[in-house]
């Protein structure tokens, strides 16, 4: 089921959480709503679910599969919603939690006891918790609770799955496992999924499409490759991973770009370079975009080597190298080097 939002705004006590947002979520895709906290991503998700109402506007419209659902309550929209802190019913067992959505159906739609039990156990197997059916939520680990919340949302057989910071409260290792598992589940069950996250790594890893939000607006929409390699603006580039920012002057007439040490007043653009797009040389090559720097700290523990350098104003520059490249260079602390960018982005100010 595709989901479309048109001209959607939301104001909380004078604070504009969403500002005239237009977006379409394609059927069958796993979309990440990515942005810093306060950017409006959770509000957007809750509006889709019907947990919030958008500001009154003649053109505003939320539709599922082309059908306007603006007047439908959260229960009527039949979406599976997974809450940030799970919101499990703490006085009910795992089984009761998952069965809840089936038990509250109207009598003529409600499955029989056996059917409910069968469906709950199918879901328990799906989330790999069949032996835990009799536990209370407080007797489960964070990752297990998250999976119960997911199974509970799936019990009503939604066509849309909405997840609010699904892995936010888990430790790094469980988070990694659970997000790959979620991706597989999504592929298995073919629904339209939207999840909110502030973790760009998570979004880049499992989403089909990423929607970047900032200050209540959408900055860019695209596949992980598109947004990572062709960030639409400086915010997107800065948000999607580490980046070195330099002042620069763009001379339109000469088609010339001048990297500058610091803002001397003549700069009119920012030059952004990712840490892995910088090369380190011992000698000056007299290239224009050459940055002199001094090695400050080297961190070799990890899959890549992270090198911290200081430019002439003692401002930090970050360079990422492979272990092999690093061995070739044999850098020492306080050593003087020159950095040349392989790839850079310029955003005028």
């Amino acid at each position: 089921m595709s989901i479309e939002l048109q001209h959607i705004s939301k104001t909380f006590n004078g604070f504009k959480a969403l500002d005239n947002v237009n977006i379409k979520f394609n059927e069958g895709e796993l979309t990440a709503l990515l942005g810093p906290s306060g950017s409006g991503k959770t509000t957007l998700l809750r509006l889709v679910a019907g947990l919030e109402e958008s500001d009154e506007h003649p053109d505003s419209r939320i539709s599922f599969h082309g059908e306007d659902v603006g007047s439908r309550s959260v229960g009527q929209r039949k979406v599976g919603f997974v809450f940030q802190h799970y919101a499990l019913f703490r006085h009910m067992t795992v089984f009761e939690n998952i069965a809840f959505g089936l038990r509250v159906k109207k009598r003529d739609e409600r499955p029989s006891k056996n059917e409910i039990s069968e469906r709950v156990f199918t879901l328990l197997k799906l989330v790999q918790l069949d032996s835990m059916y009799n536990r209370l939520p407080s007797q489960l680990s964070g990752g297990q609770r998250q999976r119960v919340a997911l199974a509970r949302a799936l019990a009503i057989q939604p066509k849309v799955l909405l997840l609010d910071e699904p892995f936010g409260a888990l430790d790094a290792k469980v988070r990694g496992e659970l997000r790959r598992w979620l991706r597989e589940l999504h592929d298995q069950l073919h629904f339209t999924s939207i999840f909110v996250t502030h973790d760009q790594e998570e979004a880049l890893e499992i989403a089909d499409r990423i929607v970047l939000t900032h200050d209540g607006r959408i900055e860019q929409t695209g596949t992980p490759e598109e947004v990572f390699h062709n960030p639409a603006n400086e915010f997107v580039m800065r948000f999607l991973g580490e980046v070195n920012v330099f002042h620069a002057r763009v001379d339109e007439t000469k088609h010339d770009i001048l990297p500058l040490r610091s803002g001397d007043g003549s700069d009119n653009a920012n030059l952004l370079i990712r840490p892995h797009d910088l090369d380190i040389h011992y000698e000056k090559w007299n290239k224009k975009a050459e940055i002199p720097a001094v090695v400050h700290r080297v961190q070799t523990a990890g899959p890549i080597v992270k090198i911290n350098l200081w430019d002439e104003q003692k401002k930090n520059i970050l360079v990422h190298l492979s272990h092999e490249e690093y061995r070739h260079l044999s850098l020492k602390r306080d050593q003087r080097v020159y950095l040349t960018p392989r790839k850079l982005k310029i955003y005028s100010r």
Partner: protein
Amino acid sequence: MKAKKRSQALKTPTVFNILIGVAALGFITLFLLLPLAIVFTEAFRQGIRVWWQSISDPDALSAIKLTLLVAVITVPLNLLFGLAAAWALGKFQFKGRSFLITLIDLPFSISPVIAGLIFVLLCGANGWFAPWLDDHNIQIIFAVPGIVLATLFITFPFVARELIPLMTEQGTDAEQAALSLGANGWQTFRRITLPNIKWGLLYGVILCNARAMGEFGAVSVVSGHIRGETNTLPLHAEILYNEYNFSAAFAVASLLTFLALVTIIVRAIVEGKNKTREKV
């Protein structure tokens, strides 16, 4: 770590610690246990037969009946009001919320006698509503309705105050989850909200009941002290005492004291349940 620290603190028995213990025990004995013992010894001083006669006296029986009647009316009503108020104030954020929470405490902060007077001024012979009440031949002051109204007012905060912090802390996540799973408002309340507050609710009801049966000041002002008609147990005890009928007064008092003891025991059980519940 914490346990270790605590045991270390306990391991240093100084004179100071012992003195605090003695003072606390002395205080409890003097102000709590001694009066309790006096009530029961005085009540049974002339034997159990006199005690029985005192409480089976028609006026005493009528006082017991009236006290029970008042509790039966006010406790369920205040359960409903308190629940509704706590739901609105605990689960929703709106302007004037903290003012309303303060307002709920009004019956606690006002003297019960003043509370009774308010009703006399409203519904008494020269009160604001007197003409209307006279026209419809309704008597409130010096009658059972007045006692019920005054007790309702006095006992209103118990359930609400118990539930507001509980409901605020629990938030609305679980309710939203229930709604998103297709439950309607009533199902959400019955299956999600209520089970999570039931011990707190029971606790509030017990306290509310104890006060409803024991309230003196406000009821005294509106009741008119008509024997066999508008006397509740506390008022009856006072009348007997003023007539120097000590053994009968203490017999009635022993009933109220017994009620207090039962309340404390039930309260302890409920509190225990509440705690284990939270731990799970």
